[in-house]
């Protein structure tokens, strides 16, 4: 909080602001008039059937996908065609992918220090020290000198989280972080994410882990056919959702 006041940022104003965002893939309307405000420290879980546009939505927030209409403002910077703005936003927004996307030609430690050294211009020694701290927090400091190909899926995903945290981001985006994992490895990744949430990180997670959502989410968002259909606190979302579509979806994923 002190840091924000010092930097002249209002802690109550939205850190991410989406205004009437529309996106098309060719003629396919993938995002329809999305409006979303996220305040600092808020945890949002987005769910919905496949093809509903939830991944596309969070990929728009760090400009991995371009939106065609509307306004996206992240931490005071508008994402437009200005490459400098895009680079600025990406420095402050970490992302964790479904397929981990670790760099296979670099060691775990090098994966974690690459961006701090080349983007933040941090001294290598310092970057390594920070990286080791984060690797300890995700509980794999002993794997630092191995290559990603030598680790299990769960370990790789934890390295990916550490790699993002090394950039000291304001916001973390998670794009189905546990969907490519074997069941027994899901917990180790979720545990790390819960810890991160408890430390006050602003998080937007696309996930179907409803247990995780109930534990950490401040707000649940349900998307279908490119639209935000339902937006509510977990309590209301799981117990008394408004829309029929949400009820149907929850019925299907919670029935087992």
């Amino acid at each position: 909080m002190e840091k924000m006041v010092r930097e002249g940022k209002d802690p109550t104003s939205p850190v991410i602001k989406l205004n009437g965002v529309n996106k098309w893939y060719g003629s396919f309307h993938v995002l329809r008039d999305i409006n979303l405000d996220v305040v600092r420290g808020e945890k949002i879980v987005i769910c919905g059937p496949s093809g509903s546009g939830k991944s596309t939505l969070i990929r728009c927030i760090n400009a991995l996908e371009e939106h065609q209409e509307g306004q996206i403002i992240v931490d005071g910077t508008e994402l437009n065609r200005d490459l400098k703005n895009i680079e600025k936003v990406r420095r402050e927004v970490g992302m964790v992918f479904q397929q981990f996307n670790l760099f296979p030609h670099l060691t775990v430690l090098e994966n974690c220090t690459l961006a701090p050294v080349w983007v933040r211009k941090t001294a290598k020694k310092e970057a390594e020290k920070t990286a080791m701290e984060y690797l300890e927090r995700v509980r794999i400091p002993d794997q630092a000198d191995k290559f990603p190909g030598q680790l299990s899926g769960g370990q790789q995903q934890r390295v990916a989280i550490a790699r993002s945290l090394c950039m000291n981001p304001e916001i973390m985006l998670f794009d189905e972080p546990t969907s490519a994992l074997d069941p027994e490895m899901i917990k180790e990744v979720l545990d790390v994410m819960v810890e991160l949430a408890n430390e006050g990180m602003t998080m937007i997670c696309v996930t179907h882990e409803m247990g995780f959502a109930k534990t950490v989410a401040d707000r649940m968002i349900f998307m279908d056919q490119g639209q935000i259909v339902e937006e509510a606190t977990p309590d209301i979302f799981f117990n008394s959702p408004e829309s029929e579509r949400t009820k149907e979806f929850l019925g299907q994923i919670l029935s087992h």
Partner: protein
Amino acid sequence: MDNKRQPMLVRLWRDPVWRAIFFQVLLILAVVAMVGWVVNNTLSNLEQRGISTGFDFLSQSAGFGIIQTLVEYDESHSFGRTFLVGLLNTLLVSFLGVIFATVLGFLMGVARLSSNWMLSKLASVYIEIFRNIPLLLQIFFWYFAVLGILPSPRQSFSLFDAIFLNVRGISLPWPILDSGMVMVAWTLLACCVAVLVLIFFNKQHRKNTGRPVPYIKAIMVSIVVLIPMMTGFLADARLQWEIPALRGFNFSGGLVVLPELAALWFALTIYTAAFIAEVVRSGIESVNKGQKEAAAALGLKPRRVLSLVVIPQAMRVIIPPLTNQYLNLIKNSSLATAIGYPDLVSVFAGTTLNQTGQAVEVIAMTMAVYLTISLTVSVLMNLYNRWVSLVER
């Protein structure tokens, strides 16, 4: 059925290990018999025709001239010397070809993937045209259609009255080295090595501190420029250029790049670069899209994404087919014979063979040379490939 009741031979025949050994022994015997027959046949035929075997001819006087020699050579030198001259000419054009084809190929491969429509289309057109026309035809194109229709020396195209382009080739000024200049040249070489060391050091420094060494570019430029200049001043070096001048019907002096070399070099470079461009493109495309996204999401600039993440991973896909292209280029340089560039095949397996009649020895030596060059290139590239390969579980 119980195996033990079968006769011994049947049991061995059904055992995959013994069966494999049997076939391999059979194969070896067949190969040895074949080689023995060929050697025996050749020797007896040579004897019948009264052709002496052996390598004595290499010390005989050659008696013919060669238009381009990198070492001292005239008609009085031996056939052994023609071998060396031809070998060096082959190495020269191969080296020039490999270097330029690599640079052009990488540029074209990256250009083909560029998001700039014009650039990528131009690269595609280049690739499709030059890899689909036979190499021999391209050599003829450069030799006869481009360099062959240039004006005679008297009507040369000239640039600053120092560089002349005519049907006899390209004449360039060439420095005459006095003792001072030799010292300057050595100093310059030493400074270049120093700068290479500096570049390496700067890379390390950048990795360690995230920042380049301050004023590194200025430092490097001054090392390369100022130190050799001071040496030159102290040693009282005088740089004199030998400028090509028209004497009679031709230019003399300076460095002459013969049209035969230029045509072969251009054709090999442009033809092979088209294939290398495709190799590079497929290598870059083989890198998972997620890698680029992860690197971009960390805030790396597109240039850094390419150089730090994509290219290092693409290299392991690029190296093996790139090696093939290098080997092809080196072997294709033997098409030199068609336009009279004095390469190893033309000078040694051509003229020398005709004059001495030592077909077996000459062809064997020539083949051995290409084999040696190719295997050396392969070994070096394999070493590099092992160095860049990924560690997996």
